[in-house]
């Protein structure tokens, strides 16, 4: 897996997110209260809401447009909604955030 350095951890607010632009659309990088990071498509499967702008609570995010809640690790909608957002591998090392780059290749091949 190729991991690309995309940001300093401190660029992302705790309980918040920042966005990485990719040819396949934006990816939201979330940083939760304990400094773990998660990467998900920045598009809500409901009507495309930018998940990066949602309120983060624990390891979940609430979509800012109509309030669907997603688990940040699995991308699965919570509370009975049937939906899933694509997730990508991301990790923190020495204060930098790394994102799995292979998804780009995978996606354009698919």
């Amino acid at each position: 897996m190729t991991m690309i350095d995309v940001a300093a951890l401190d660029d992302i607010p705790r309980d918040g997110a920042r966005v990485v632009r990719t040819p396949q659309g934006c990816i939201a990088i979330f940083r939760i209260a304990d400094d773990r990071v998660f990467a998900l498509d920045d598009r809500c499967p409901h009507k495309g809401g930018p998940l990066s702008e949602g309120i983060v609570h624990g390891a979940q995010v609430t979509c800012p447009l109509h309030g669907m809640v997603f688990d940040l690790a699995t991308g699965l909608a919570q509370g009975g909604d049937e939906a899933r957002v694509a997730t990508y591998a991301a990790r923190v090392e020495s204060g930098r955030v790394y994102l799995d780059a292979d998804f780009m290749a995978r996606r354009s091949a698919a």
Partner: protein
Amino acid sequence: MTWKLVVIGAGMASGRMLEHLFEAGFDGHVTLFNAEPRGNYNRLMLSPVLSGEKTYDQIVTHDDAWYAARGVECRFGEAVVRIDRGRKVVVSQRGETPYDVLVIATGSAPFMIPVAGRDLPGVVTYRDLDDTNAMIAASGPGAKAVVIGGGLLGLEAAAGMAARGAEVTVIHLMGHLMERQLDPAAGYLLQRDLEARGIRVHCKGATKAILGKGRVEAVLLEDGTVYDADLVCMAVGIRPEIRIATDARLDIGRGITVDDQMRTSDPSIFALGECVEHDKQLFGLVAPLYDQARVLAATLMGQEAAFRPVQTATKLKVTGVDLFSAGDFAGAPGREDIVFRDPGRGVYKRLVVEDDRLIGAVMYGDTADGAWFFDKIRTGEDVSAIRDTLIFGPAFQGGASADPLAAVAALPPEAEICGCNGVCKGRIVTAIEGGASTLDAVRTATKASASCGTCTGLVEQVMALTLGDGFTANANPPMCKCTDHTHEDVRRLIKAGGLKSIPAVMQELGWKTVGGCASCRPALNYYLLADWPLDYRDDRQSRFVNERNHANIQKDGTYSVVPRMWGGVTTPAELRAIADAADKYAVPMVKVTGGQRIDLLGVRKEDLPAIWSDLNAAGMVSGHAYAKGLRTVKTCVGSEFCRFGTQDSTGLGIKLEKLLWGSWTPAKVKLGVSGCPRNCAEATCKDIGVVCVDSGYQISVAGAAGMDVKETELLVTVATEDEAMEVIAAFTQLYRENARYLHRIYKWVAKVGLDWCRAQIVDPAIRRALYDRFMLSQSIHQADPWAAYAERPVDWQPVADLRLRAAE
């Protein structure tokens, strides 16, 4: 021939290693070097020495007799400066010492943050007896000490000096104390306990410089705060002490690299303790070091042994502070939290379960079950069968449950329950004990909940507590799934308990989740901001997107920007600036709104700071068209131009908007001011409406024209503009202080009654006090958010753009 073992460093690790070695019958010759002018002592116990609970003599682990009996040649006060691996000798002040086998156990060195003044006399670290003695000498009654770093060591230093009578301030960079071991809730409790001992805690504090002429005098923080100091203890972290190993070109990472047998890259050199790195891991607590000592002794005796790091648990050695942290307690997907809070006893427990196994625990206030949980973490046993009662520990395998009344039970008798009539818990209890057994009887006896009624829930809880089973409270729906309390109860308890942060509210009111949810977080943020304008700092991450970005999000993720247009009046210059901005940022639609403003719809997020600063430059501030706050004051032309106008409705509308803008409210607030009863500004369907008449101003409130449509009701009629302004600010404050989050004024008035509102407003003293509190809050919150955020435009951009990379 006996072999020569040389040990560098007489610390916790090497001391234990020597014990194992001699117990196993080692018969070689040991030379023990130590930079400190003394032998092995229990470093952990320096904290009790500092606080005065122990003396140095009591913490010595190996005395002269012990070394003598084993023929250990002690070279204390003599640092090894070089290792000559080729000739197998170590070099120290007194010359060379040959070895067959060398053990490096040099521990760590405290890290100093590189700020000006760190070399001043009076700045110490916390590592050895000399540091401890320096702190003891400097911390008599009246002395002022500043500790930089709110981790384990810093807090033990702070508590120790405080115990000796010093006035201690702890400066911590992060949002809560001991953030590596504790979550915010436990960190809050710890801070509360330390503050109760007179230790001042300053979180989110970055040290800028240590000040003083010839000796330390004060510490300056980045935010400008200055704390006087006779002594500064820097406890911000440690680094493995690897200098001699580096010079000797042993393999090193962050520490000296060792294998499972504690062997370095040189087969005759071993290392253990805090100076080593094993499998990319460093060690900072003694438990794993003791394992290393056992493994190394066995290896040296030719036995087979391998070091496997195990989980360690943390405790803070401050008498009277009970905390425990073990394993991985970070919240993460797939992990479930089990939370128990007992506000009455100041207890917080949190377990983290993953795949039916306990993987982490944080506890505060009651750590009796720590060992039991720690064992479950280590063994990784399946806990699914006992999950429901796990948090109650081994004793409670029947299962107690969190008590929804605990927060009220914990309140002291003087805590105010009814804000309107100033009735405290003690008086209500006395009335109940005096025979008042129904809500009406309590109301008659004390007046509690007899006015606006929002504290009814709390009064009922006090009754339930006092009368026990004899009383059942009316269950109102709780605020959200995170708590059993209603919005109204939470508001009252925040005030009664003096709670000033989100973690404080969650702990003291027994929140059932770790960090709340998207529904309670914004509400709590508002309540704290409204109740403690001077103390509370807005939590941006607890705000809904529109308020966080100060613009209204649209269905495609772009935003609409509405500059303030006071009273709906604009100028050619403002219109020109708006037109220029619309052109420059290619705004897809410019629309006149229903509230007499101009809306720029479809602005991209990354353009927001730039468009803001352009509009700011033209003298315009945010219209807060996205806020739970003052939106618009709609006006008509009034007496200035209209043939029917009785007063200057436009002028009053502008004044009102300038008075009220920037205030955060439970839900949005819209005003209208009409110049005569023809009411062209539709004032009588607003949250607050003013209709001008010949004799003055009719102020009416609680209108609605959205999902509900309702005409306003008359609050008061006043003669002058000044009175109108004071009444409206005071009424807004009454609403800010009492309504539940997201209730518009008409919903709130329907609950508390217009008569009660009017009674507050017509009483000159109450009205003035409300007005003053409103103005105090405005002194903080009436600031244009655009100006502040436009300073860091990069925060609004994507952090990275990978589109180019893919094109390569």
